[in-house]
């Protein structure tokens, strides 16, 4: 049976998990890390770098390194978030043909789903390496506040990466799913998610019947571990400037090292009370004198530098609980998600606010991917009865006279759902009405997002306010919105299904899928060559080690001399093939070398 992988596609880090033998497990990448930075870069030589290696050169190659693409996915170029990114991002964001943001790396322009696809493709390859077979199905998580367009763009990213995205689920839902897996619980839980670049708080109800319901969610898309690191960097830079009158931020290599060191320092201070930052040869002075950065950093100092950031998360928690119509005391469990929640001061602030210690039963970096994997396995196995009840992330409604927004399905309403409302005409003898389907929280329609529109015609001629039209909004389990308008007297009806658009056309998507396939094949090819090269190198080395011994053994007789000469010739050929680097030739050479090695081992073994 096909395996379904669960992918936590994070703003700064991603994680992949799978259910094996009924147990969800997180898959480590080749470097042994269970999370992979959501970063993509293109080097001067045109080579694509994804994950840790992209992160390690993020400062020295800033204009060609993309991070936090998730903040842009599914958004319009003119949206405030994209405009903010334009000012802050070191990489170049341009306007695409469909009013969507595009990213330029070196001489090529990519769509945002393409960038996310590169990360998803990496996660897929990690899973395939682990499972030893191809993976084609995935459940991907997104923030609970993502709208239809953002969800569809994430699905498109999955498709470009060669994945059939069988479900998109909310991150807090996935976390709660992993938390409640195998337990029989009836609880109201808060999921406090402080990741690398974003903060989210969600309140959920978990029922023993296996129902997970998000009742409220909020967050800050520009608050996360990166801000904490920046405070450490600022402190280090300031100290160095006082001592040497040099601003380390002006040197890219120094800044890259500072960033790495700041993150390391922050992580270490979660376990120890003080740590040393030691960066020898951080910069050279104007007199070509090498300067070193060395200083002690304490947990107390870090907490002092970041207390306002922690406080910001608590204020958002307060607001979210109020929005859910709950009291702090109603929260029966707090689940911590995201690497930043390992910081003792964050844990303490959460415990203080909620009046209870947060749950220690789940791994903050892995819990979302584990939940996605659980959901994936449940969708494939009909016998499992895990039911997810998600909520609408935004209010759905339509535009009415005066440019106002009339709500039909409120925010945080459990899906699937259906709501109807009666509207009337505003003019005498009005025979048609235009239904503008919108999404958002503003009372003014033009401040909300237009999802679709249609016209209901053939209304009977009557004075204003006498023709009644029933408008019904329906959202199915996959989040697809259908709107129906019916003249109650004539029964004449018109409807629309709102199809989320990611900003890519079918043709563009198909081209991107093909290009991504080509990359995957080329990369697998490189890996095969590298593996064959290593095998040949190992065999050559072993044969060379055994050769003197074998020569000694056969020295006394004519027997075996030919074999030694042949082995020498084979070693010579192997060296040539190694230089050429052709995968097929390497494989053939390896087989011959293995035969020789077996023979040599046999000869030496007998002695």
């Amino acid at each position, binding site marked *: 049976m096909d395996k379904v992988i669960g992918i936590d596609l994070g703003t700064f880090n991603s994680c992949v998990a799978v259910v094996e033998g009924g147990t969800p497990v997180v898959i480590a990448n080749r*470097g042994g890390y269970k999370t992979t930075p959501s970063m993509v870069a293109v*080097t*001067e*030589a045109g*080579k694509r*770098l994804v994950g840790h*290696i992209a992160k*390690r*050169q993020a*400062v*020295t*190659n800033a204009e060609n390194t993309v991070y936090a693409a998730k903040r842009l996915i599914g958004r319009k170029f003119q949206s405030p978030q994209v405009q903010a990114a334009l000012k802050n991002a070191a990489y170049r964001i341009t306007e695409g043909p469909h009013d969507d943001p595009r990213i330029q790396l070196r001489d090529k322009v990519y769509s945002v789903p393409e960038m996310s696809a590169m990360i998803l493709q990496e996660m897929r390859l990690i899973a395939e390496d682990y499972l030893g077979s191809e993976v084609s199905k995935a459940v991907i998580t997104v923030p609970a506040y993502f709208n239809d367009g953002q969800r569809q763009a994430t699905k498109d990213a999955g498709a470009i990466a060669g994945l059939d995205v069988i479900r998109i689920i909310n991150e807090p839902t996935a976390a709660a799913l992993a938390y409640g897996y195998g337990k029989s619980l009836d609880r109201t839980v808060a999921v406090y998610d402080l990741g690398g670049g974003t903060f989210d708080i969600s309140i959920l109800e978990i029922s023993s019947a296996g129902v997970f319901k998000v009742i409220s969610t909020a967050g800050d898309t520009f608050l996360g571990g990166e801000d904490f690191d920046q405070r450490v960097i600022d402190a280090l830079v300031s100290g160095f400037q006082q001592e040497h009158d040099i601003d380390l931020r002006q*040197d*890219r*290599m*120094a800044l*890259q*090292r500072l960033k*790495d060191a700041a993150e390391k320092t922050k992580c270490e201070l979660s376990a120890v009370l003080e740590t040393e930052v*030691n*960066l*020898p*040869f*951080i*910069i*050279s002075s104007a007199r*070509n004198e*090498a*300067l*070193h950065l060395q200083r002690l950093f304490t947990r107390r100092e870090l907490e002092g530098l970041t207390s306002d950031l922690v406080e910001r998360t608590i204020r958002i928690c307060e607001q979210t609980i109020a929005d859910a119509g709950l009291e702090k005391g109603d929260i029966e469990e707090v689940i911590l998600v995201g690497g930043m929640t390992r910081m003792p001061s964050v844990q303490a602030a959460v415990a203080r606010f909620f009046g209870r210690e947060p749950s220690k039963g789940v791994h903050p970096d892995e819990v979302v991917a584990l939940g996605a994997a659980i959901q994936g396995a449940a969708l494939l196995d009909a016998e499992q009865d895990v039911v997810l009840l998600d909520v609408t992330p935004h209010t759905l409604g339509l535009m009415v006279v005066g440019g106002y927004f009339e709500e039909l399905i409120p925010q945080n309403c459990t899906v699937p759902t259906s709501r109807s409302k009666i509207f009337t005409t505003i003019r005498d003898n009005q025979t048609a009405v235009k239904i503008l389907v919108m999404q958002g929280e503003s009372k003014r329609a033009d401040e909300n997002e237009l999802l679709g529109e249609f016209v209901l015609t053939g209304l009977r001629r009557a004075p204003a306010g006498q023709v009644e039209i029933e408008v019904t909004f329906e959202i199915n389990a996959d989040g697809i919105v259908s709107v129906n308008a019916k003249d109650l007297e004539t029964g004449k009806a018109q409807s629309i299904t709102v199809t989320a658009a990611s900003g890519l056309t079918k043709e563009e998507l198909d081209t991107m899928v093909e290009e991504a396939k080509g990359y995957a094949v080329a990369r697998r090819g490189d890996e095969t060559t*590298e593996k064959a*090269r290593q095998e040949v190198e190992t065999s050559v080395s072993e044969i060379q080690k055994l050769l003197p011994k074998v020569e000694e053994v056969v020295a006394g007789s004519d027997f075996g001399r030919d074999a030694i000469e042949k082995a020498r010739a084979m070693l010579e050929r192997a060296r040539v093939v190694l230089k050429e680097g052709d995968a097929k030739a390497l494989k053939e050479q390896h087989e011959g070398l293995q035969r020789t090695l077996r023979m040599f081992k046999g000869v030496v073994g007998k002695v």
Partner: protein
Amino acid sequence: MGRDGDGAEEEPEAGLATAWQDGRSRAGQRVSLDFRGAPLALPGESTGRSEPPPPPLLGLPDGAFSRPATGALSVPPLPALDAWSRQLPPGTGSRRPSSIPPPPIFPTVESNDALALVGGTRLTEEDGPPRLEREMVERFELGDFSGALRAAELVLGQHPDHAQAKELSAACRDKLAALYLARLGGGQRLLGRVIAASDVRWLGIDHRAGFLLSQVGERTSVEELLDVSGMPRHDALGLLAQLVDAGALEVK
């Protein structure tokens, strides 16, 4: 130049080395000094002696790769050197003793550039492109690619569109990159740090080499380091080769 005799009427002067005439100190007795070193000179005053030779440059001397530029590229095995470019006996490693602060392994700005050292003269206003052009071509033909590159860059500094200098500098970079890469054993070779964090300070490296060293993890290949370096390929490879020579890195 020492002052002999009893020197009873003379005031003692400071010297590089002193010796009691009779080997003992006597209270209230004047002493004379025996100078054994060079005379001291005031700033700007000539000592009448030739300047001491410049300290040897460490790392990759230009001559290390000197060979004709034509024909197939082949790199003869280089002798094992320690961090001070002293040849090591066969079978010994190239680790630097950590207790002694060594001289810098890279030329400093004060040491002037390679051309000035070779020619024995300082570059002057008259040293214009014609001389440099000749120099870059000659050096390239001799296989001194780093010298040729330096000359080409100086020409390009004055004439940014100089076609020959552009072509030659690109060729030099490629040649140097290939040579350094061969010394490191290829792009897929793994590099490992063999120097303790506390001893890194004692390496005479610059901040670019310090950056590269900081990027070496448990399993880092040469190619990965090139990808993260943010430097021109031949520069990064040159620094890596020098770090290996200095005993800071090992090729696994």
